[in-house]
């Protein structure tokens, strides 16, 4: 009896240890709802997409070779994309090419949107039926994929970029891939 009586408190201490460690992980930025993308460290899917603006170049996955690329899936109908858009404009000359993929959108709508908000993209292509997005595993815009010089996905940003995410996640990764 005397020893069994200590069992509840011992179990509780173990439980509290788990809780404490989990909280520590959260403070280091690992939230329990964070799900790692299965696409990271895998070759980017093959695709070839037409440009949004006639006369500008389209983009195919062959063009990943030799350059670091950030593929940004967005849409004119997407509200969070608007907050991200302003940040993307500040990313010129940071060591990668920025490819915008207009996801499941109407050409007139996105043209009007870019005329209003500005066009930060080096290359802008349209994925009207969303097939390329599905191959990438996009489940909501905006999502961005950082692709290395060999055409492998190295990093995925789910949801809009924030200034912190650009500073802490994106730019260090870009610098690493450009080495």
């Amino acid at each position, binding site marked *: 009896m005397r020893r069994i009586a*200590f069992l509840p408190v011992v179990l509780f*201490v173990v439980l*509290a240890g788990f809780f404490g460690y989990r*909280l520590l992980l959260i403070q280091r930025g690992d*939230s*329990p709802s964070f799900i790692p993308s299965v696409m990271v460290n895998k070759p980017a899917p093959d695709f070839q997409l037409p440009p949004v603006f006639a006369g500008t170049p389209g983009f195919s996955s062959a063009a990943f070779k030799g350059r670091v690329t950030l593929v940004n899936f967005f849409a004119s109908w997407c509200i969070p994309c608007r907050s991200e858009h302003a940040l993307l404009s500040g990313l010129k000359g940071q060591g990668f090419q920025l490819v915008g993929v207009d996801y499941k959108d109407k050409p007139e709508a996105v043209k009007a949107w870019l005329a209003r908000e500005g066009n930060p993209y080096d290359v802008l292509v349209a994925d009207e039926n969303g097939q390329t997005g599905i191959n990438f595993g996009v489940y909501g815009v905006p999502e961005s994929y950082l692709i290395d010089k060999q055409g492998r996905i190295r990093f995925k940003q789910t949801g809009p970029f924030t200034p912190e995410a650009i500073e802490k996640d994106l730019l260090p990764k870009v610098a690493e891939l450009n080495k």
Partner: protein
Amino acid sequence: MIPEIGHFALILALFVALVQAIIPLVGAARDDRPWMDVARTAAFAQLLLVGLAFGALVWVHVTSDFSVLNVVQNSHTDKPMLYKITGVWGNHEGSMLLWVFILALYGAALALFGRNLPPALRARALAVQAMISVGFLVFILFTSNPFARIDPAPMNGNGLNPLLQDPGLAFHPPFLYLGYVGFSMAFSFAIAALIEGRVDAAWARWVRPWTLAAWSFLTLGIAMGSWWAYYTLGWGGWWYWDPTENASFMPWLAGTALLHSAVVVEKRDTLKAWTILLAIFAFSLSLLGTFIVRSGIVTSVHSFASDPTRGVFILGLLVLAVGGSLTLFAVRAPSLKGGGLFAPISREGSLLLNNVLMSTACGTVLLGTLYPLFADVLNLGKVSVGAPFFNAVFIPLMIPLIATMALGPMLSWKRGDLGGALGRLKLAFVAVLLAGCAAWLLAGGSAKPLQAAGGIALAAWLFIGTLVEWAERVRLFRVPLAEALRRAIHLPRAAYGMSITHAGLAVVVVGITGSACWTSEKITMMHPGETVALAGYQMTLNGVEDGVKGPNYTAARAHFTARENGRVIAEMYPEKRLYTMPPRPTTDAAIHTNFISDLYAVIGDPDGKGGYVVRLYHNTLVPWIFLGAVIMVLGGVVSLTDRRHRVGAPARKATSIASV
């Protein structure tokens, strides 16, 4: 000015709580009556001060004072008045204030109604209450101040999460908290008893009404939450085994076990250490629920904006309260000597079985809720534990529990006569056979005839068994009717409470079985004018009206006509609402009930070509789940009105209480 008064009142309340936590304890140790009596005065002062703070927060919400950050973040001038008031506890800071307000209410109630308690026990219990209060007041004042100002004040607020703008959800937190916090009374009594080193029948008799009150509130709160999930989430389900739901269910299971083991302590002066442990568990699990929901350590569909800093703070509180009390238990429990011995087949034995099953069930829910966390921390990958696990483990535990529920009350204390009890339950056996066969036949259309027959038979066993037990008590048909009637009138309310609650559970079991076995659903694309058949009904989509204006939302409102054999049963108007502040869509299911089954319609997204995704359900017996829960609460209330609780407890040491 008002927010500062509220803030100041909270700070004062903290000091009063500190005094209440220390002085009475010292007084009880020194047997100094005036020092002990400080507890009473302090408990009233605390209620006054925390009540003032709570009132101030309600005031700033009602008057939409946008210079207060909490109002800005959770309110909006367009919000209906009802939700301005309920929005007070629809957020982290406000709900914590409600938590301590209810704690202060219980403390003051103990001070008021506990006049016939031994002064030392009362002083110690109130001191423990005050310690809990100190912890939560510090937490509020340092991490979650609801009265923080914002400068400059914005013109309007961000509005309340639309999911919370619903009567079911608006009123369920107060009931849940009345339940959670109510278990703090049993906890405080348990700690006081451990400090004194004495647990006896009188102690159990003082603890029971508080536990019963907390249990009744918690039952109602859980039922309301489940009802809300049923009609707003729009998937026809009423329980999802979500961590937030489990957080409220675990204290309920522990509290139910406590209610039953306290009976054994009161009547037979045994199972003492176990009862104390359950009292600690019931409240600890309430605290654990608070921690799980607010720290963000597990993912849940509905939880508060989580904040790891607050998580660390609540974990600290948890370690102090639970770790401290369990350590005290470990040191003191071995000295609590049990009194009466009993045979395995006896009333005590059946109550002990109830306790073992209830605790195992509770442990299972705890394991299932926290398993994703363990797996994550131990690097076993991201997993989620869903309904299949809980159903597979929980249901097999509940079957023997319910089977003994009808039997237990028929057994006598100390040594029961199983054969005799089973003999007296002849009628229940007949009912089981009839109900099982009827359910089997009716389940022809169901995919699960075995479960249907089993569930209904179990419910019939419990219901008829409970009736037989009552009939035995009043000796119905064995003595003249007038005599039976006289006995029925003089039967203690506690006995009626038990019968009503057990019968209510039987009704819940029928509802759960019905919803598991007979529900039919149809998820399809419909165009206006089309009709689909569902469980013998014809559902016609007449049209969808866009842009229906509500006070703070616009909605697409569909119009369905439900017919049975061409006769119109109901006009149903499910809505898909888009709230303006904050912009967020919600579904509003249309439910037509005939109290046996529900027709349940949800309108989804348009396909752009004139069609709409619709979800239609025919939920058999689901209303019985909520009806049964209300009956269970009613049983709790009836039991609370028992004369013994009103005339007060017997003098200590008077352990030979006539068995009921």
